[in-house]
């Protein structure tokens, strides 16, 4: 039982995360201050929501690289529309609109993937360019700093604040609740609904899923629409926290997100992955990229270290399965004593 626990990628990533925290904290005690942790939570929120979406796609045996384009498209378009109609209301309306745009774009992915059975990587590479090009050319390419009031105030929407010894007030941003909610919903969906199990089934063997009578088109439509929704919401959070709508943002992060998800145990080949592993993978990458500066590693080295972590993290399970394959095949009979 214990052995099984330790052979899991989740455990490995969790332990690495704890060790990393202890090392960084020992070198620089600032790491353990609430301010740093609130910062980490804030940074992990957008990546985390993206990563849950990526997890679901990976489990189904697909891959989506268009979610960043969906996120920036939804966020920027929502900002432009809200500015034009002079919307005065609060943030929920922004999330609703951005999420709805995300769903529509996700359905475009789903249409090509489910209806025509095209490879998911090719479709989403195409739609990434398509969405982004359309956004820059048709909707706008300028950075919008003059935000609608509801969105402008969002960066100050803290759950609570604390004032530390030096008199600096820091707060935990409410956006983290989205991540918590998305994680819980995804966990319940994947583990306890037939829809969720059909996603695992599809990722395990498409042919077996078809023979069992799963409605694969329906499952795929759900997956890509859901990823679109998550991307729309995450994009809006991103814009709100940064207090600007920049149509050049976000795209380019997709590989980091996919890497964090794979680091957390999701299989590129489909059929495997868990919400808890994904969250741990995201936390590990976030701590790496936010905290190296605390231990005096120049920020230019961060990319190198993250790259190394990702390669090591994904190599470990591969090496382990190679080892398992090389295990003794035959239980050799001992020679009788002479």
């Amino acid at each position, binding site marked *: 039982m214990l052995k099984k626990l330790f052979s899991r990628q989740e455990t490995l990533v969790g332990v690495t995360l704890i060790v990393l925290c202890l090392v960084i904290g020992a070198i620089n005690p600032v790491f353990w201050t609430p301010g740093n942790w609130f910062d980490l939570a804030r940074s992990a929120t957008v990546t985390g929501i993206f990563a849950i979406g990526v997890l679901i796609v990976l489990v189904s045996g697909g891959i989506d690289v268009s979610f960043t384009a969906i996120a920036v498209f939804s966020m920027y378009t929502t900002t432009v529309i809200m500015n034009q109609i002079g919307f005065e209301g609060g943030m929920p309306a922004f999330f609703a609109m951005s999420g709805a745009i995300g769903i529509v774009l996700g359905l475009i992915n789903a249409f090509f993937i489910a209806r025509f059975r095209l490879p998911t990587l090719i479709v989403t590479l195409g739609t990434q360019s398509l969405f982004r090009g359309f956004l820059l050319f048709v909707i706008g390419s300028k950075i919008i700093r003059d935000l609608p009031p509801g969105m402008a105030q969002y960066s100050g929407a803290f759950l609570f604040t604390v004032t530390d010894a030096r008199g600096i007030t820091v707060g935990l941003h409410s956006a983290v609740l989205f991540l918590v909610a998305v994680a819980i919903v995804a966990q319940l969906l994947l583990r306890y609904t037939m829809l969720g199990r059909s996603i695992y089934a599809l990722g395990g063997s498409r042919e077996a899923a078809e023979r069992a009578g799963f409605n694969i088109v329906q499952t795929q439509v759900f997956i890509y629409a859901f990823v679109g929704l998550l991307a729309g919401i995450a994009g809006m959070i991103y814009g709100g926290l940064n207090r600007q709508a920049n149509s050049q943002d976000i795209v380019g992060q997709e590989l980091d997100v996919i890497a964090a998800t794979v680091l957390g145990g999701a299989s590129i080949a489909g059929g495997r992955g868990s919400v808890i592993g994904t969250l741990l993978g995201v936390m590990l990458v976030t701590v790496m990229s936010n905290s190296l500066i605390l231990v005096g590693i120049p920020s230019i080295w961060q990319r190198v270290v993250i790259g190394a972590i990702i390669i090591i993290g994904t190599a470990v399970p591969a090496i382990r399965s190679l080892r398992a394959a090389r295990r*003794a*095949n035959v239980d050799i009979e001992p020679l009788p004593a002479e």
Partner: protein
Amino acid sequence: MSDVFLSLTHISKSYAGVQALDDVSLVVKPAEIHCLVGENGSGKSTLIKIIAGVVTPDQGEIVINGKPFRRLTPMDAIREGIQVIYQDFSLFPNLTVAENIALNYELSRNARIVRWGQVRQLAEAALGKIGVRLPLDAEVESISVADKQLVAICRALVQNARLIIMDEATTALTEKEIRALFKVIHNVQQEGVAVLFVSHKLDEVLEIADKAMIIRNGKVVVDVDAANLDRNKLVYYMTGRRIEEADYDYTPQQKRPLLEVIHLSSRGNFQDVSFSLWPGEIVGVTGLLGSGRTELALSLFGVLPVDRGEIRIDGKPVHINSIQSAIEHGIGYVPEDRLTEGLFLDQSINRNIVIRTIDGLTGRGGLLSITRLKERARQWIRDLSIKTSDPELPVKSLSGGNQQRVVLAKWLASKPRILILNGPTVGVDVGSKSELHDIIKNLAREGIGILVISDDIPELLHVCNRILLMRRGRLAGMFDRRELDENKLTSLLTESTPAAPAASTTQSLSPQIG
């Protein structure tokens, strides 16, 4: 309860003018084990698909449980209790045993929420019915082929199967696993479930069937109680001709062994194996799964590392540490799983044949000469009588027996001196099988040394002049063909304790000449 579960009457089906089934009638009673026997292309698969509701017949009547069906759909078939276990089992490798057993049932009753307690209960109950224990939480990917099959059977039972159709169920199983499967099938029978067992392995049919229906070219040849059948009759019914296989008659030709294996060991694979192979010999290597027979072959071909011992070819010690070096020493290996290891399925027959010797087919300027390529391939197609209308067709369009010939041609093209054949006729039907055996014997007569790895007892006896028996990683015996018959070899193979006199150490390493 009626005493007939399924009845098909006067079923006919044609595809684009080809008559796949012609006036076939079949009656299956509850708790009956009915074997469906025929060579590849005889119409077996079409018949299964009709019963499963996947294919609609052109003519004929289907009655299940007394209900006539004009157009049977797959959903109807499942609802009436018909379950098909395909050759690949259609399992989900990433899900647990318990979930694989329960998932399809949960889906068919339109469940939206998964109750894990119930999933385990369903799985446990089904495993209990067939009297088998499996780890419920193990991923299906990590269990053996035989266990996967049991999972598929349980899944069928969970869905209240009244008739389970098993398509070539034993292809990937060892003798011992087949015994265990037959026990399970009898347990299933005890539950009142009928089994339609599709096979072309004669011994199995004779052993398990209550009734057997033999079809050939889409027509029923005979549908009788199995008690009225024997091996010869079955072969005759299946192929329409009498197949008499002559044993391989080896005459020693040269004074020096081709291959000598001396105290060879590979950690975790096999230990202290010594034997020799003479030109023109066909030596069988047999043993149960896990005996090390395949591992020995893989070591000789440079796939698995050797720790100790020596390999000599023509009396000279050689180092074989990679596939490349094995090939350089004239060793060829035809794998058991030709589909994934031996062939480029989507590529043409021509290309598959010449792939190993493509360097020798260049014309002017170092470019590939298509004319020479086709010529070379045509020659092999003729020599091995590969049946195809067009050598440009992909290899996957061929039957199992013909695919195996393409793999053979591929290796023969590179003129090996030692040929290792792992399960040369796995998944090949009776007619093709004896033709393949003839090809193997002819190759040996030309002076190639051949190792045949197999647990097909009649095959070993027909093809080999010597047989090595492996058990738990060691050579447990070496026998001249003339010392053995089917019963003796079967009991040697399934015996768990070593043969009484330590035959392996006392017998000479060379074939008995005389």
